[in-house]
């Protein structure tokens, strides 16, 4: 790994990040398009949640992680504080792994 690659990745990533705000300035988007853009973010977040809960790279992440996420989801559904959700998820997964669940 060399600095050229690091800078190339940094620049490319930053270009992706900056493009949205810069483009939005130029295209005056109506409410309908804004709604789709927001829903687009929701779709991406839903996908991230599902894939990061279940997959590690291209493979199944094991049972401990989704179980932890499920515990956190339960806490979130019951409207428990955010901190509780995060801790419940981590603790459940940690506990399961300590018990030998993969």
């Amino acid at each position, binding site marked *: *790994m060399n*600095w050229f*690659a*690091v*800078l190339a*990745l*940094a620049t*490319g*990533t930053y270009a*992706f*990040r*900056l493009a*949205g*705000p810069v*483009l*939005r*300035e130029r295209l005056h988007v109506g409410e*309908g398009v*804004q709604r*789709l*853009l*927001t*829903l*687009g*973010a*929701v*779709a*991406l*977040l*839903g*996908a*991230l*949640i*599902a*894939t*990061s*809960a*279940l*997959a590690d790279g*291209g493979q199944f992440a094991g049972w*401990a*992680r*989704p*179980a*932890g*996420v499920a515990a*956190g*989801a339960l*806490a*979130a559904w019951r409207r428990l504080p*955010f901190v509780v*959700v*995060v*801790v419940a*998820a*981590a603790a*459940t*997964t940690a506990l*399961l*792994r300590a018990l030998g669940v993969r």
Partner: protein
Amino acid sequence: MRFLWRAVRGIHRELLRDAAALALAVFAIGTSFGALAVAAGIAPWMAIGMSALIFAGGAQFLVVGVVAAGGSVTAALAGGLMLNARHLPFGLAVADVIGRGWAARLIGAHLLVDETVAFATSQPDRARARRAYWTAGCLLFLAWNLGTGIGVVAGEAVGDPKALGIDAAFPAGLLALLLPSLRESAALRVAAAGALVALFTTPLLPAGLPVICALAGLVAAGRRRR
């Protein structure tokens, strides 16, 4: 920099607390990245530079993984860029939250990550979304870089975040942030559809593409209710 002062004045304790909780998890993963990068043979300053300049956990771990497996730099770069492509639609979605001034845009763009987007979209109005974005953004950036710095130095002393279950904390946290938005049926349909598309394509496509494909879930959006 007036926008920053205005944002800071309005920060609510609740927001700070929630962002801090996630920042702790980000810190832990950051230390793991620092340690793993050094173990894979990446120079300490390069690892620190990566966290500061790229600030994207997924891509950074992918690079470390490719380097550790002896893969080519090109493969690492391509994989990282594919993984980070989702920042384009994210940026389009939160453009109005980031702000209009050039400083806000230039700095705000660098703080664009999954978690800051989730924090912003979880808020009911734009003012709070902006505060959430910047609070989370600054905290997470600090946590990530501090973590990397410590991980690089502490090396083997850093424990395995998986033993602490931290890898479950992120999806759970994102879900908690997303849940309020899912009360709207269109959002729920789109999130579910996006999740399904991504899950089905994960075994088939290289990292980063399944999540982008989730945008196909927008077909489930339906019409805007007037």
